């Protein structure tokens, strides 16, 4: 770029950096405190510096079962993710044409987004206990989380299909593809990037969901509940170690994602090079 950026760029840039610092405030604190010495606690001052708590993270805690809860949260997150993706796509497809009841359903889905999570938790818990069903993270908890992830997935799919060019499907049908083939070979690959977004969204929302699982998890805790339960005893910087690892892990994933994206981009660009071919 041979032009100077305007002053507003620097002012807004500074604002953005401040915003980032603010966002990362807790993350920094967690990062620093996770290196507490073995005698240290959850607050300042630091008592020595060590990797003690990272080591402890992989051992058994006094209370609770972080890794068991982690596995459950992971599994639940994956279940929620899969169902969110599939159901959202289906609903998104349904909404591509008008059908009687569409508006009502649309507002129901919106309502699902804005209804306070504790109400869902309370309601689902009540239903299950009044009906005498067993409350379990994979049934009631799963359902309660879906009321949160589905609307997000659905809205994203709605946006995606709003911009989806129907000519691709017509072309595929013209080429003899049946309904399923049209979906499998044309629609699905084209919306795949957005599906990754929906999946990530679904997983993250589920993985960190506290309120909706509070009364619906049953006998075994998900990770957020477990961490909350752990605070009923002496919790140690192990939690911070977990936080720091999570952050590093996310950085890793994003880095991998960017690298893959860039490589694919570059490979495609190379394939499209006209070098030595003469202009057609």
């Amino acid at each position, binding site marked *: 770029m041979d032009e100077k950026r305007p002053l507003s760029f620097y002012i807004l840039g500074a604002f953005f950096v401040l915003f980032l610092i603010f966002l990362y405030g807790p993350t920094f604190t967690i990062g620093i405190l996770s290196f507490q010495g073995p005698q240290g606690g959850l607050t300042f001052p630091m008592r020595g510096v060590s990797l003690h708590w990272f080591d402890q993270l992989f051992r058994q805690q006094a209370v609770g079962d972080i890794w068991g809860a982690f596995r459950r949260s992971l599994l639940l997150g994956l279940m929620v993710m899969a169902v969110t993706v599939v159901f959202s796509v289906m609903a998104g497809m349904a909404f591509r044409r008008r059908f009687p009841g569409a508006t009502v359903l649309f507002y129901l889905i919106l309502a699902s987004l804005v209804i306070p999570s504790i109400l869902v938790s309370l309601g689902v818990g009540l239903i299950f206990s009044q009906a005498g069903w067993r409350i379990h993270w994979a049934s009631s908890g799963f359902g309660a989380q879906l009321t949160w992830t589905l609307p997000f997935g659905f809205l994203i799919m709605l946006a995606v299909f709003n911009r989806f*060019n129907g*000519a*691709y499907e*017509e*072309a*595929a*049908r*013209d*080429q*003899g*593809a*049946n309904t399923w*083939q049209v979906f499998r*070979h*044309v629609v699905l*690959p*084209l919306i795949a990037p957005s599906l990754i977004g929906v999946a990530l969204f679904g997983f993250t929302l589920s993985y960190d969901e506290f309120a909706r699982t509070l009364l619906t998890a049953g006998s075994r805790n998900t990770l957020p509940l477990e961490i909350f339960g752990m605070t009923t005893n002496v919790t140690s910087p192990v939690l911070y170690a977990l936080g720091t690892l999570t952050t590093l892990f996310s950085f890793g994933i994003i880095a991998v994602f960017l690298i893959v994206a860039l490589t694919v981009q570059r490979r*495609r660009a190379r*394939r*499209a090079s006209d070098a030595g*071919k003469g202009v*057609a």
Partner: protein
Amino acid sequence: MRSLLDLELVSVTKRYGDAVAVNAVSHLFPAGKYVCLLGPSGCGKSSTLRMIAGHEGVSDGAILLDGRDISHLPPARRGTAMMFQSYALFPHMTVLDNVAFSLKMKGTDRATRHRRAGELLELVGMSHLAQRLPAQLSGGQQQRAALARALITDPQVLLLDEPLSALDPFLRTRMRTELKRLQRELGITFIHVTHGQDEALALADQIVIMNNAVIEQAGTAREVFNAPKSEFVARFMGGHNVIALGGRRHALRADRTRLVVPGAGALPGISDGIDATVTSYEFLGTHVAVGLIGPGDAELTAMLPEESFFAAPVEPGHAVRVGWHDADLHQLDA
């Protein structure tokens, strides 16, 4: 002469809710011809084409191809293939895979379908770009790829909805020559929707002019251009003046419209014309189009060879007389 492979519309109607987009249209598309569907925006061209292709249901009437009623068959079983306006190439597949798509859907094995797709790419001169993604192609290349994809199903009728409108003028002229060549080589029917009359004239063996959901006139390019039936056709085809004489309307080709500057004396063989005023002129390279206002505020255009125009230029505001050979006047139906 009617061949078995003809495509026939029998009183085909398309309604969207209350609106009638195509109103009981009947027409026989002769086999192996290049047909252009021409008409102003919203006249029902696309709807007609999409009904033939099977992407739109027929509200009334029947579509016959090869003697069978195809109006209720799925698109792929009609013997038609469609090339879409913006080509609708699958952006996530290479050109080769795009072309081989319909064979893949049929379950043809990989080697066979790639070989066949390769042949069609060869036909449209795109073999060297088989591995590109559509986004990496220029407009003209995309068009050829789309053409190859449409042709791989061996259609009897190829339907093209404004295939050239996404190209720049330079490319447009080149691609239309190629389309015409391809049609001639393949010998199948092309039905090409456009709203450019020059495109239709250049390409079509038969031009079908639609207006307000019905067909106004159908015929060869020369018939339509030289003998427009209605004022609408004459105006829409361009290059015509419509002149009211003795209560009847007549079409007069603009290039047969002569200008006589008052006082310069009549030209031999030119009938006594009408008075007009020059409003503008446009240089078109070989010709100059002179805009005129005649009696009753009628807009007229005289198309003069540039050398004769510049030999005796007129400026806006000049009073002139407009004349013609009587043989060039063509009486209109309505």
